[in-house]
């Protein structure tokens, strides 16, 4: 086992899965000759040829639409959207076709495609390189969504997404692409979709997060005197409700942390599930720490927008003092 970065593990997963299954192909803007703007697809074109690591025209809806047809021809396309906010044109195909086509065929055809993209802020980038668009994807019926927070999960969840028979959207925390390192098994490594990860066990309060907010929660836990449990949701759909409810049954106090704007964000869904299924376990209101309902800001003030360790610590103190 070697200490490896998230983006290295995404690249490794793609190499392993393309070698394992001749039907898997990668397509996207600059994925081939350049190896991706973040180098996530580096080396694939040389190793597997330009047809299986295909530089597409600059057309996000066209990429995903073509991927639907490729599935019908027996391929398993892995589509890269270059950045979170550049994925919005592909929502047309995602909502009108990707999430519906299997249903439309009476369950007779499969659309085993993957849409993967770097997401999130904190990287001092221009506008629309910083969004957390997971809600749009989770809200779309027929589509699964997973967001890794560690190098091992980046590899394992992407492998699971590629092998899954349903369409899966994978959001990758670009802030930690190269800054977060960890041990990862070599060769084939699959982390099943739909299983949360207990990042840290504790008794007093549960911090629920995914992706780039997991390290923020872990840092907050370090600062607090309370015994803090950190639950990494990992897959937003299908959701591991059992793990969520088990943690809350133990601690009775919950803070949910999400980088995306607050209204109708995924934290609201988690809070609603707790209201429906864990009301008697709760010792305090469920609090959310989220981005604000504003356009993602200029990067000189983005740190004020991003849920910070200080904001999470503050929220934990409030639920513990309730």
């Amino acid at each position: 086992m070697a200490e490896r970065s998230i983006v290295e593990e995404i690249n490794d997963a793609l190499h392993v899965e393309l070698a394992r299954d001749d039907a898997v192909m990668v397509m996207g803007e600059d994925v081939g000759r350049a190896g991706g703007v973040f180098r996530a697809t580096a080396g694939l074109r040389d190793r597997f040829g330009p047809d299986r690591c295909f530089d597409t025209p600059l057309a996000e809806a066209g990429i995903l639409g073509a991927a639907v047809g490729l599935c019908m021809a027996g391929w398993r396309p892995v589509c890269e959207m270059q950045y979170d906010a550049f994925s919005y044109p592909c929502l047309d195909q995602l909502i009108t076709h990707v999430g519906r086509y299997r249903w439309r065929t009476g369950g007779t055809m499969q659309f085993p495609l993957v849409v993967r993209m770097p997401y999130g802020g904190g990287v001092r980038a221009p506008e629309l390189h910083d969004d957390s668009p997971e809600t749009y994807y989770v809200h779309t019926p027929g589509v699964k969504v997973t967001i890794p927070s560690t190098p091992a999960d980046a590899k394992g969840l992407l492998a699971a997404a590629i092998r899954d028979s349903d369409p899966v959207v994978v959001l990758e925390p670009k802030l930690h692409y190269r800054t977060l390192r960890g041990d990862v098994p070599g060769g084939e490594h699959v982390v099943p979709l739909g299983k949360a990860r207990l990042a840290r066990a504790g008794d007093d309060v549960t911090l629920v997060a995914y992706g780039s907010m997991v390290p923020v929660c872990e840092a907050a836990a370090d600062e607090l005197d309370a015994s803090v449990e950190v639950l990494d949701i990992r897959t937003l759909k299908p959701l591991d409700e059992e793990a969520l409810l088990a943690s809350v049954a133990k601690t009775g106090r919950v803070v949910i942390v999400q980088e995306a704007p607050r209204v109708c964000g995924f934290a609201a869904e988690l809070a609603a599930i707790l209201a429906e299924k864990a009301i008697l376990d709760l010792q305090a209101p469920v609090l959310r720490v989220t981005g604000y309902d504003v356009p993602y800001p200029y990067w000189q003030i983005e740190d004020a927008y991003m849920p910070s360790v200080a904001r999470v610590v503050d929220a934990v103190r409030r639920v513990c003092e309730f």
Partner: protein
Amino acid sequence: MAQVLPAERDLRRVIGDADGSGDRELEGLGEQELLDLYRSMVLLRTYDERSLVYHRQGRIGTYAIFWNHEAMQAGAVHALEDDDWIFPSYRESAIGLLRGMPPATVLSWWRGHPAGWWNPEDYNVASICVPIGTHVPHAAGLAWGKKLKGERALAIVFFGDGATSEGSFHEGANFAGVTRAPLVLFCNNNHWAISTPLEAQTRAETLAAKAVGYGMPGVRVDGTDVLAVYEATREAVDRARRGDGPTFIEAVTYRTAPHATADDPRSYIDLERVEEEKKRECLGRYDGYLRRLGILHDELAESIRAEAAGAMRAGIAAAEAEPPADPALLFAHAYVDPPATFGSDLDDLQRVLGG
């Protein structure tokens, strides 16, 4: 490579005027093939006319009429092989009938019943695309994917003049151009997108002119001339099969019926033009052509119409005999592995429904 005929007067035709002047004959089409084409057109015409009646009787829901579009659909499909894929819009809802799909299936689709769902692989006919033009990239992807696998099959995608304004048309056409996908882009230019006339849709001289921008040939044919459509599609198919990539076909016609059963075009359409176009509607033109060749006569035409009418009677009876859809189907089919919450949702629903 790219070439476009300049104006409407240059529309390709095979069928001449009612007196036979201008009639041509196509190589490779014998009497049997010509009559098969006629049967297909009559089947589609009968489907369409009966569907309008069924709608008025409350037996199917809102229906998109395709009267006078049969030549485009039948002419193009007859130029394909069975392994080739068809991507229909709602205007081609019954095109699967030409691949052996039972009328009951399409009628069930318009009845909003799950028996109207089909497996595209059974007929190589994709699901009906309701949003405009978003299936163009699907067809490009399938055609490209077949080519990458070394398979012979190609794809044809049907869309209207309005679809050429959509981004997905552009992205799909460009994708096909770049990948040299074996694709036929078949534009049914009936001059109207509900109430929006062609001149409000584009200032391009022709829709076929758009092909130049994608590096593919654009051809224009008379969309009410089934043999011209067949010939142009056959050439596009040959080109694709040779590995020379996609072709854009603009089939020019005129919408003589409402957009759909919920539409009343009298407030916007040129009613005199409609009456003129009805006089040269596609089935009548082909009927006259076959009679001039001595291939078709009253008795044969009547038996073909009776056969189609019988298929529709059996089709609507079968569609209406379908048992009511099971609400449990709400949770079926969307996922191969559905989320666990579907189980409790279904339990709750059945408890409330008393199931």
